[in-house]
Each structure stands twice: as structure tokens, then as C-alpha cells.
């Protein structure tokens, strides 16, 4: 369940989860107090402030809950964790230039963490890796002129061909800036 929540489509449903109850209550109140009966409702201030307390508590709990649950899925946390606990990290250095990548390797073992370290040598580029089923796994922003590479550790679960795309607009052939990684079974 959480695995699904913290994907692109999970984000979509989360947004609807926050929107729909709000939109429903909003339309109900506006409709009822403008069309059905626009007279004063006679709710006491005490009742209203209790309602306010409940509303803010619900919002706060949802916000904190979602963000706490997301910790496990943050690449920043996963990268730091892998760097301190794993000694078998594969590494791939990559360099982006309009409109292609240079990669130190295009083959990665599944199940073993791999560190991507990327730079750009001209303008802003991205390095986004797509699962064979079409969803984006992660993207990295490569900014020219930095002394350190943009870098994160990812562990691929399934073997297959993974598309790489640039997701930072980099000029007229931006959409053609692509590559491919092959994830192989671990031996």
C-alpha cells in the first residue's frame, strides 16, 4: 500500500484525497447558504471554534502522518543509509552534454545498490530513469559549474531495460536526449 502511495500515481490519488472531501464540503456549504437558505445559521462562536480545532487537528495529523510515512521512500535517506551500511555499492559516473550522455557503464546488477554520480558540461540537464513499465523511478538535476556531482544511490529490484530521459529543458532537441540502462540478474 505505502509502496504504491509513494509513486507518481500515488501522488495523484493523494492529491484527490486532499481535494475531494474539501471540495464536497465547500460546495455543500456554499450551495446551502446561498441557494437553499441564506439566513443566519445561528451557530454559536463556541461551536465554531470547536469545529476549527477539530479541522486543524485533522489537517495536522494527515500532514504529519503522510510525511512520516514518506521517510522510507526518500532517495536522500536511502542514499545516506546505503552509504553507511553497504560495502558492495556499484558506481556509475555520467556526464551530460546537449543532447547525449556519457556513462561509465550501462549494465547494473539488480538487488545491489548503485551510486549514480552525474555532471553537466554545458547547460542544465536531467537524468531520469524509467522502469520498463513506464513509471519514473527517480530524476536527478545536473547543473553545470558545480564542483561536486549530483549523486544518489538506488537499488533496482527487477532486471530489464530501463529508459533514461533528460527532464530539464535543454533546447530544441531536448526530447531526443535519451539513453538506456540494462539491469541484469545478480549472480
Amino acid at each position, binding site marked *: 500500500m505505502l509502496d504504491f502511495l*509513494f509513486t*507518481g500515481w500515488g*501522488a*495523484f490519488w*493523494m*492529491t484527490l484525497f*486532499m*481535494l475531494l472531501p*474539501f*471540495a464536497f*464540503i*465547500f460546495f455543500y456549504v*456554499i450551495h446551502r*447558504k*446561498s*441557494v437553499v*437558505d*441564506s*439566513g*443566519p*445559521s445561528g*451557530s454559536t462562536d463556541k461551536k*465554531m471554534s470547536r*469545529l476549527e480545532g477539530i*479541522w486543524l487537528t485533522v*489537517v*495536522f495529523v494527515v*500532514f504529519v502522518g*503522510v*510525511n512520516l510515512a514518506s*521517510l522510507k521512500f*526518500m*532517495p*536522500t535517506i536511502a542514499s545516506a543509509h546505503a552509504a553507511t551500511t553497504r560495502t558492495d555499492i556499484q558506481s556509475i559516473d555520467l556526464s551530460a552534454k*546537449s543532447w547525449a550522455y556519457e556513462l561509465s557503464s550501462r549494465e547494473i546488477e539488480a538487488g545491489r545498490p548503485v551510486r549514480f554520480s552525474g555532471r553537466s558540461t*554545458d*547547460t*542544465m540537464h536531467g537524468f*531520469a530513469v*524509467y522502469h520498463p513499465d*513506464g*513509471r*519514473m523511478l*527517480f*530524476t*536527478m538535476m545536473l*547543473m*553545470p559549474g*558545480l564542483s*561536486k556531482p*549530483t*549523486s*544518489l544511490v538506488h537499488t533496482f529490484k527487477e532486471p530489464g531495460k530501463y529508459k533514461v*530521459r533528460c*527532464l530539464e*529543458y535543454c533546447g*530544441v532537441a*531536448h*526530447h*531526443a536526449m535519451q539513453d538506456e540502462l540494462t539491469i541484469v540478474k545478480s549472480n
Partner: protein
Amino acid sequence: MSIASTIIQNTPIFGKMFTVDKSTGLEEINAWPALMIMASFVWLAVAGLLGFVMPATQIFDLDTGHFYTTLTLHGAALAFPFSFQLMMGVGLHRSGGCVGKAVTGVFPALAFITMNLGAALLTVAVLMGLKVSLIVMYPLPIVGAQMGIWSMNSVILGFTGIYLVLACMILCYPILVLKMLFFGTKRPELVLSERSLNDPGMLGMTLSALTLLIAGTPLVIVGTTVLFALYGIIPMTMAAWATEPVVFQYAFFIFAHNLMEAMALMVMSAMYATLPLYLADGTRKLFSNRIANAALWILLLTSVTSFLHHFITLYPNQPASLSYWGNIMSWGTGIGAALSIFTVLATVWQHGLRAEPGIIAVLAGFVLYILDGASAMVTSNIAWAFQLHGTMWQSGHTMTVIVAMSMMWMGVLYHHYPVITGRKLDPVLGVWFVRLFAVGGIGAALSMLAGGAAGMPRRFAAWNQEGWMIYGHLIWIFGLILGASFVVYAYSLLKSRDISSPVVRQVAAA
């Protein structure tokens, strides 16, 4: 007669929509705002047409260069000379009427000229080949010129245009607002609805102007340095510090992010000022000014540093601690929004509402704004950011926040239009505007968010690459509905009737 009134009178079609009423003695707070509002609708027509062409270039498989050209022009026209200028116009009229000060002199003229001349120069530069998207993607303009994709002349022209637009948003307009709020003498005959700083309707206005000025100043310094170097006034080596991508990018996004927040503060304050005027029991006050003000303060404090969410995927070049901070602050803005929601609903619940098209447009815009806020918070969470950054999700968010705020301003304009022009708008057309706008706005927003969820990249001329064209079609269809709502709005402006003539048709007929 004011120069602004003269320009309006001599503008075909659009001029007819905004002819200023000179019989009321309020020309000094109406003329420049009316001219700005008129110009914003001219740009909306341009942006709308481009918004229609942009998906069409992909659906009909035209040259990809056309996509990037329309993308750059559509985004820039929608965000700055339309949305920002509409806010300037309605906002300045409001400021004038709240404090009884004339909107005349050098600053309104400067704000008008810098915005429109700047946007026009940028348009010419893009037509000359500069395709850099709404956010410039620095150092892309320079790299593209070095690669020979576009000319250095187009870069210099484009930068000059962007610089003028920034000068309007960061200097001319905020200084004008602050000058009106804090300096000069009040002229009682110009006071329409007096407000103090304790009033949410005025607090937001003040915070917004301060945010633009303060968050934008670093970008003005960086931008001025780059511009001087481009014109050869200083040697390139002296501008090396400012042309570093990381310097430009951070200065740009501290401002660009807070620009949106400042516009939100401004429109929230306009909503807080307008809603009480439409309460059924005639109370004319919000459920609680205290809570409304708290919402504005929370939005301000959390949003200033939440811009850090733009660089989450730059990890570890943006230290993780700053990304965590940006994540938390972005969700903190949601607490401000929760307070705003409560204030609006509690106010309507206690006092009832006179459902006129203007206030309904404001409230529908507010719903869209909340939808956008939810999508923005989600993508600011670090786990989701890595999977959504650079996708259509972000385009959906950017477009929706602009459309939502514009809808709220167009609603607020319903309220101010009779004071400015001496004419009133047809309520039946108003109802249709709200219906079409709500369907088009929410539909386009959800289509773009869905595209992003499916991994569809933004600013990307090959939607057919992975079956993303379905979202392209949906965006196009809902975009057309949105466009239709603008046409209805424009038609209602053209067909406005003298204020003394009886309204023949009533809202109930709609």
C-alpha cells in the same frame, strides 16, 4: 484627461471593454488600473491562442521547434503580462480606493511600460529563435547561442525584455503600492472603502508588495550584472560571479517562487475584502479577522523558504538539510490554507451568501487554488519530488496556480468594474463564465497532474514517445473549454450596460 484613458479610448475592441467613467471624479484611481487590465486581456488573447496551438503542434505532429516556441511564449505571456498585470490593475485600483491616494505620476506609467515593453521584446526575441521556456533555464540562452541554435542578438534582446518585466514586478509595482500605503496625503474624495493594516484586505496587499521587493532584490542585482556584461558595459570577467549557473538559478527561484506566493497573498487579501460585501445578512465582516490575518502570516513565513523544494533533485549539491526544510515549509503553507478555508466557510455558514457571479468566480478560483496547493505540497515531499520533478505535474501546478489566481481576480473585477467604467456586466454570461472556467480549469489541472503521474515529461516535444498523447488530448480539450470561458468573459465586457439601465435578465434565469 489622463494619458491612460486616451490610450484606452484609442484601442480597438479591447478599449471598448474598459472605457473609464469620467463622471465620478475617480479617474485618478481608475485610469492606469483600467489600462493595465485592458493590456492584460490583450496578452491573454495572445497566450490563449498559443495555448491552443501548443498541444496542436504535437497532436498534428508538426515541427518540434514550433512546440518549444509556443511553449516559451505561452508561459511567459500567461504568467507576466496577463496574470501579473491583471493583478497590478485590479490591485492598484483597490489600493487607491482603500487609502484614498491617486494612482498617477511616474510609477504607474513606468510599471505599465516596463511590463508591456519587456514582454514585447521577449516575444520578438522568441520569434527570432530564442526558445528557453518561461523560466529561462539559465545558462541555456548563452549555451544555445554558443551552439549556434539562436543568435546572441536574440539572447540580448530576450534578456532585456525579461529584465524590464522583472523591473516592473520587483521595483516599480511594489514601490508604487508601498508608497501609496505609507506615504502621501489621503484625499477623502478618492476613498471608496477605507481600510487599516489590521484589515486582512489590506494586510495581504502590504505583505505581498514587501515580498516582491525583498525576495526580488538579489535577482535584480544578479540580473543587472549579467545585462551590463551582455551590453559590454562591464567586462564578462566582472560578471563571472553572477553568470555562475548556481548563483543565477538560486536568485531566480527565490524570486520566482515568492512571486507566486506574493500574488497569492494579494489575491487572498482581495478575497477577504470582497467576500464580506456579498454576505446575505449584510454583516460585511469575516468570521474572524484574527484567523484570516494568521493565515496570511503563516503563508508568508512558510513560503519564503519553501522555494528550496525546487532543488530537491540537485542532491547533494543542495544539502539534504535544506531539502528537508523546504519539504516541511511547503506543507506548512497548507496550515495557512486550512485556516483560509475555515475562515471562508465559517463566514458563509454564519451569514449566508448572495450568490452573484463575481463572488462565485472568486470562490471557484479559490477551490482551484486549493487543488493546486495540494498538488504543490505533494510534489514538495522529497519522496514524491524525485518521481515528479520535471514532469507535467509541475506544468499542471504552474498553470493551475496562475489560472486559479486569475479567476479570482476576474471575479474581483466583477465587483470593481462598475466603479471603473460606470457599466455593469451581464449576470447570465457571468454564470456561464464561471461554469466553463471551473470545468476547463479543474479538467486541465487534473489532466496535467495525471500526465505527470504517468511520467510524462514537461517542456517535451514528443508526447507520442510513451503513449502520453492521451493526456495531451485531454489537456487540449479542457484547454479549449477554458478558452471558451475567456471568450464569454470578454464578450460580457464588450456587452456591458450602462449602470443606470435595468438588468433585464436575472441570474435565476441561468
